[in-house]
């Protein structure tokens, strides 16, 4: 006997992502899901963002890592509330883990929640967390050919951060080619080119983000 099911495998995650959205809306918060490959500069970018928003927007961070707490200690050192989720081998965060973190954190006074997803360009793209904004980082060292290899991530992100532009002189990275490919996949993507090392380009990103947060409020 054949039984019709018609149920999406990601539906269970999406139901919890909707609960997270409700938590975010009720708390008057703005949540950003930050995705990139290992070492692209996610933690460095979060540190720069916290510093850039200092005195303007209060931030809390949810750190997703397969193991360890190196990154959450770096962030806690910057004086913002931080919670660590160890996924224990899993290569992405799911809505349920973010739900637990949101419920455990003291979010009073917080305006922006940044989620550092697990370093991976494939899996995190499939799992909605209930975020307002999907931000991905591509670092110059990874090369400009990545969009066609990881199309889902590039086509679903609202923002593309091209990090480590200080390294461009040492590589054959072609910024024009990258932008052309990404715009075909994702015509409305916002692209920011910056260096978390030198600070170049950070201001432009901070201004844009602050505006987005204020618009929502």
């Amino acid at each position, binding site marked *: 006997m054949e039984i019709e099911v018609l149920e999406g495998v990601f539906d269970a995650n999406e139901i919890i992502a909707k609960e997270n959205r409700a938590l975010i809306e009720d708390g008057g918060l703005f949540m950003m899901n930050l995705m990139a490959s290992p070492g692209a500069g996610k933690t460095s970018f979060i540190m720069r963002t916290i510093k850039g928003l200092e005195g303007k927007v209060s931030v809390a961070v949810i750190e997703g890592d397969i193991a360890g707490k190196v990154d959450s200690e770096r962030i806690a050192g910057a004086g913002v509330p931080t919670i660590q989720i160890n996924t224990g081998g899993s290569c992405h965060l799911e809505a349920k883990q973010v739900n637990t973190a949101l419920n455990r954190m003291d979010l009073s006074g917080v305006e922006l929640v940044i989620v550092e997803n697990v370093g991976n360009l494939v*899996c995190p793209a499939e799992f909605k967390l209930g975020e307002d904004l999907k931000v991905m980082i591509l670092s110059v060292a990874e090369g400009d050919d990545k969009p066609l290899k990881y199309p889902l991530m590039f*086509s679903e992100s609202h923002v593309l951060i091209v990090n480590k532009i200080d390294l461009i002189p040492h590589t054959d990275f072609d910024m024009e080619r990258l932008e052309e490919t990404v715009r075909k996949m994702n015509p409305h993507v916002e692209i920011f080119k910056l260096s978390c090392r030198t600070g170049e380009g950070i201001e432009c990103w901070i201004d844009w983000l602050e505006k987005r947060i204020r618009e929502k409020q």
Partner: protein
Amino acid sequence: MHEMSVTENMLDVVLRHAARNGADRVTRINLVLGEFSTVMEASVQFYFDIISKDTVAEGAELNFRKTKLIASCSDCGSEFEVVEYDFTCPSCKGSETEIISGREFQVESIEIK
């Protein structure tokens, strides 16, 4: 990769519908997998064989129906197949497009005894 947790979710769906319909065995699971999904067929099969042991779905055949990446244009309304991830509308060159299929991973139906 993420196929482990994805396969667990898929099995949950299957077992829930099997129980609801009083199945003794699930013999076949018909899945729809979009070509734009990051889920790998072979990995799902690999994990399924492990985690379905001692459930009514043990030994079920996984049947994948692949769907192409199809988008529709909000400007002119035409539907088109997205080739090489270029989402520009081939009819009007519009960039306001929406994915209709090709991104899904769905349990379409199950065959039970």
